[in-house]
C-alpha cells in the first residue's frame, strides 16, 4: 500500500506539472464540463419560475439530486479515468502487456497512472449545488449524516468502478470495448434527475437493478428526504425499514465490484492464453 501511494504521488506531481504547463487545455476542459452542468441547471431554473414541483420534487430537492450525482461522477472521473484507455486502446495496441511485466497489481497500476483533473470542474459545481440545496432544505448535518453520506459516496463510487471495470474487461474478448464502456457510462445521465420522473416500470427497474445508477444519487438523497412509505412508493417495492436501504445499496455495489473483478480475472486469463 505504501508503494502504491508513493507511486501515485509521483504520477500526481508529474501531472500537476503538466497541468501548469498546459493551463489552457485544462481550463478549456474544466470550463467545457462546467458549461454542461450550467446548462442542466439552467433548465431547472427556468422551468421552476413557472411551476412549483416536477414529479413531486421541489427545485431545491432537484438540485440536491443533481448536485450529489455530479459529486460522485466527478470523483470517479478524477481517480478512475485511465481504465478508459484499457477499453479503447491498451489491448488493441498491445501496450497492456506492460502491466503484466510489473511487480504490482494490474488494477492498482491502471488507477495510479492517471489523475483526470477535468473532473474537478464537475466535483466543484456539483458540490456547490449540493451544499446549497442541503442548507436550503434545512437538512441536519451531524456525524450521523456525514457518516451516511460517506457510506453513500463509497457505494456510488464502487458502482461506477464495477461497471467500468466489467465493461473494460470485455475488451479481452473483443479487443476494444470503448464503445460499450461509453454506453454503460452514458446511462448515468439518468441520475441527474429523480427516478420518479421516469414513468416507466422497465426503465425504473433497469436503473435500480441492471445498471443501477439510480443507486448513485436518487436512492441516497431520497433516503434523506422521504420517509419509509414514500420511499417504498417511489421505488416500487416495500423497503420495510430505512435501515435496509443503505445495506441493500452496499450489497448491490459490492456485487458489481465483485462482478467487475471476476470478469476482469477471467478476461485476463483468456488474454494470457491467447496473447492477443
Amino acid at each position, binding site marked *: 500500500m505504501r*508503494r502504491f501511494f*508513493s*507511486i501515485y504521488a*509521483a*504520477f500526481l506531481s*508529474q501531472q500537476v506539472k*503538466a497541468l501548469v504547463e498546459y493551463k489552457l487545455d485544462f481550463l478549456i476542459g474544466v470550463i467545457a464540463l462546467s458549461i454542461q452542468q450550467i446548462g442542466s441547471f439552467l433548465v431547472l431554473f427556468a422551468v421552476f419560475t413557472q411551476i412549483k414541483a416536477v414529479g413531486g420534487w421541489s427545485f431545491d430537492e432537484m438540485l440536491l439530486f443533481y448536485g450529489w450525482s455530479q459529486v460522485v461522477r466527478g470523483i470517479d472521473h478524477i481517480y478512475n479515468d485511465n481504465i478508459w484507455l484499457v477499453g479503447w486502446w491498451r489491448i488493441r495496441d*498491445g*501496450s497492456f*502487456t*506492460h502491466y*503484466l*511485466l*510489473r*511487480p*504490482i*497489481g494490474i488494477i492498482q497500476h491502471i488507477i495510479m*497512472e492517471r489523475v483526470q483533473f477535468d473532473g474537478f470542474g464537475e466535483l466543484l459545481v456539483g458540490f456547490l449545488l449540493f451544499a446549497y440545496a442541503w442548507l436550503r432544505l434545512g437538512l441536519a448535518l451531524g456525524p450521523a449524516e456525514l457518516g451516511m453520506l460517506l457510506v453513500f459516496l463509497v457505494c456510488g463510487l464502487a458502482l461506477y468502478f464495477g461497471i467500468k471495470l466489467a465493461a473494460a474487461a470485455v475488451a479481452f474478448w473483443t479487443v476494444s470495448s470503448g464503445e460499450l464502456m461509453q454506453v454503460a457510462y452514458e446511462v448515468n445521465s439518468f441520475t441527474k434527475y429523480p427516478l420518479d420522473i421516469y414513468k416507466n416500470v422497465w426503465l425504473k427497474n433497469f436503473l435500480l437493478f441492471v445498471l443501477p445508477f439510480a443507486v448513485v444519487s436518487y436512492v441516497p438523497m431520497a433516503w434523506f428526504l422521504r420517509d419509509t412509505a414514500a420511499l417504498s412508493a417511489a421505488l416500487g417495492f416495500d423497503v420495510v425499514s430505512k435501515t435496509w436501504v443503505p445495506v441493500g445499496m452496499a450489497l448491490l455495489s459490492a456485487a458489481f465490484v465483485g462482478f467487475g473483478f471476476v470478469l476482469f480475472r477471467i478476461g485476463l486469463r483468456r488474454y*494470457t*492464453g*491467447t*496473447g492477443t
Partner: protein
Amino acid sequence: MIELEHLTKEFRTPKKHEGLGGAFKTLFSREYTVKRAVDDLSLSIAGGESIGFIGVNGAGKSTTIKMMTGILHPTSGQCRVFGAEAHKNRQKNAQNIGVVFGQRTQLWWDLPVSESLGILRRLYQVPQARFDENLAWFKKILELDEFYLTPVRNLSLGQRMRADFAASLLHDPKILFLDEPTIGLDLVVKERLREAIKDVNKNRGTTIFLTTHDLGDIEQICGRIIVIDDGKQAFDGSQNDLRDRYGRIRRISFDLGRPGGAPLTGLPEGVTAEETPDRLVLRFPREGIRSGDLIARVVQEREVKDLAIEDPDIADIVKEIYQHS
C-alpha cells in the same frame, strides 16, 4: 535459472470465411485452425549465460519470450523461471526480470525520462543509493544526459531505446529479455547498446536472452545460440559449434593482377569457382581439401596480387539455415 520442458503453445483461431455471408458464418461456427507456434521446446539456461535466440519471422521467438516473462501461459509443458512456473508467478518474477521490446516503449509517453525512471524506482522499490549508482552508470555508458529531461514522446528512436534499456535494468534484474532491441537503430547507437549489454552480462552476471535479426548482435554478444524453426529447436550450441556444424564451407578470394584467360581446370571435386576480371573466389568444404594445394594451383594459372582465406561468418551460416528451413 530458466527451464523449458516440452514447452508447447498452440493458438486457435476461428476459421474465416469470405464475404458478408462468410463473416456471419465465422461468427457462429465452431471450427478452428490450430497453429502450433512453439512445439515441444526443451531448454535449460544457467545464470550468467548470454543467449541469442534466432529464427525467421513467425518461428515462435516472441511467443517463447512471452511465456518466459509470464505474459502468456503454455498450452502444455513447463516454463519455469527461478524454479517456478512463469505465468503463475508473473508478478513475483517481474521483480527479477527486465524486458526490452524494440517495438514498444515501457516508458510513459508524456513524462520526461528522469520521471519515468523515478517512477520505476518506486515500482520496483529500488533503494535510492542503488538507484543513484545504477543511474550514474547508465548515464556514462548510454549517455542519457543529453535527453534526460526530455519527454519520451520527443525522443528519437535511438534515444528512446537507450532510455528503455536503462529502465529495464534499474532494479538489477537477474535476467534481461531483449526482443529485437537494435531494430531500426543507426550503427553508432547499435554499437553502444551492444557494449552495454555485454557489460551487463560480464560485470553484473545478468543472464541475457536476446532475439534479433541483426547477426552482428549475436556475434558480439551471445555465447550461446539457439535457433528456432517453425516452433521447434533447430540448433543449440556455441558460435563455434554452429560454425562446425553448418559452416563447413571455407572461402578463398584472390585479387588478380590482370584478367585471367581460360577457365581454371584441375581443381579437386567439390570446389566451386566464381571469377570476375579482377577477382576470383573459390568455395570448398573444409574437410578433405587443403587450402595450400588450391592456392598453388591458382598461382600457376593467374597473376595473384593478394589473397584471403575466410571462414564463414555467422550471417552466412544463419542465412543457410533459414534457406534450408
